């Protein structure tokens, strides 16, 4: 499902190279649940952004479902991302001026699906994330937990096989974090491949099979 080989990412600022990721290589099989752990600044978010096709690597191979996402032309990349990858962000990244239902519809724009079908898909996703009762509400009127469930609905609306979560519990209390983990577990049981970047110790207690990748200073340890 995910193949990463000799991945490097660096930024050059004032002619000085700052290495963010160094020679990262790992494979994730379809249906795996992976915890990407590491302290702040260890490169988790950068790695996740590259896996999501939001950022390009400096060198190295990244294949998602056999597609070299760093090399796809833009028009294919947007389509690929909308179809194959769901992303849950630390700060939810919901658009405040759109209702929750419209937020969930946004990823379907790139797939050029008819409005009726798209609405039906959004409704299913909202139900699945247990937030259908708030579909008409605007993000500013939602609690942190509700926003996170809205973000889950948006991530799964196109039924992507891969879910990427970046510090998903950082803005949630313990009860909501546990509910979120429960929701992820359900999605995992449905066959989704899930990669969670986190340094929240609450994930240490999860009791279903998972793989851990520890990152330190941009390298796997």
């Amino acid at each position, binding site marked *: 499902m995910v193949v990463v080989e*000799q991945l490097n990412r660096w930024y050059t600022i004032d002619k000085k190279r700052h290495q963010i990721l160094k020679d990262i290589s790992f494979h994730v099989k379809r249906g795996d649940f992976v915890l990407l752990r590491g302290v702040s600044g260890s490169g988790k978010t950068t790695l996740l952004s590259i896996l999501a096709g939001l950022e*390009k690597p400096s*060198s190295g*191979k990244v294949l998602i479902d056999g597609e*070299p996402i*760093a*090399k796809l*032309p833009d*028009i294919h990349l947007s389509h690929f991302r909308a179809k194959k990858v769901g992303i849950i962000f630390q700060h939810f990244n919901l658009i405040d001026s759109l209702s929750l239902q419209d937020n969930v519809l946004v990823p379907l724009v790139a797939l050029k699906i008819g409005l009726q079908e798209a609405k039906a898909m959004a409704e299913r996703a909202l139900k699945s994330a247990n937030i259908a009762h708030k579909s008409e509400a605007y993000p500013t009127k939602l609690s942190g937990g509700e926003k996170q469930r809205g973000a889950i609905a948006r991530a799964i609306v196109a039924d992507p096989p891969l879910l990427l979560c970046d510090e998903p519990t950082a803005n949630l209390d313990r009860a909501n974090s546990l509910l979120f983990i429960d929701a992820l577990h359900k999605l995992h049981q449905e066959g989704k491949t899930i990669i969670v970047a986190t340094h929240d110790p609450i994930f240490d207690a999860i009791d279903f099979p998972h793989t851990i990748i520890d990152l330190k200073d941009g390298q796997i340890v």
Partner: protein
Amino acid sequence: MNPLFLNNQVIVYLFSEAALLALTILLFAKIVKFLWFWDFRSYSNRQLKLEKEAYLAMTIATLLFTLKSVLLIFFVHTIDKLSLIIPGAMCAAGVISANSYGMDLLFIKLTVIFTLLLFLIANSYDLQAKTYPLFRFKSWVLIIASGLIFIEFFLDISYFTHIDTSTPVSCCSALFGNLEGANPLPFGLDITKLLLLFYMLYLGTIIALTLETKTITLLTLLLFGVIAYYGVVYFFGTYIYELPTHKCPFCMLQREYYYVGYLLWGSLFFGLFFGVIWVIMSQVGYNITKAKWASMLLLTLFVALCSLYVAIYYSKNGVLL
């Protein structure tokens, strides 16, 4: 110093062309780098950087096409205005013939637009695939376009520096008409043979496009382009102006003739363009049937429009010019 260089429009035009030349040099350097180092199978830093830079280069090329198209219209407008200060010139056609560089410059300008349009079409097909299958092809097209733009700039400077404002130029009827010393039809043709060739080459092009025979299509398109130009200037144009001695390719672009020249020359240019595009893209494995049909449609429109002016004149007056 040539007083033409004090003309506002000439200054603006030449500065704009110089700016585009600088952009072309930048583009040329990038394309050479692409052709030298491009290896799509590689995941190295250099290749990933080249893929990012390719977007920049393609954007520059698209911008170049847009600005070159605008500047072509501005160039025609500028030389038309110059007819006021060049003795003997009545419109742009007289000014463009003020020296030997003028027609070459106009031809190069059209070829640059043509080449950049070819690039745009190849680029759009290339980006529809995931592996840039036309990357090298479209890069070579840009190399050719860059070369043509370098030549164009040289011709721009040569043309404007060699216009002598004290020597009268031949224009319109004097240049093309039946007056003493007027240019005869090229290739030893007379009007009957010219018209015969005009309609035969049109039919030949349509048949070749229908049968999808690439070499014959290319040949008939190029021949038709040449014959069509002379056909309009020496025969059909006189029916647009309703004056047998007025043999000018430019005046029909003006308001007095309802700007019909834009439709006429535009349909010929794009008709030829789409036909040639169909041939070239077929050679690299893309059979663009839309281009083929567009070519047939536009060339038919061109021939119909030419013929219509003759038919209208005949039906109104009962005689031919």
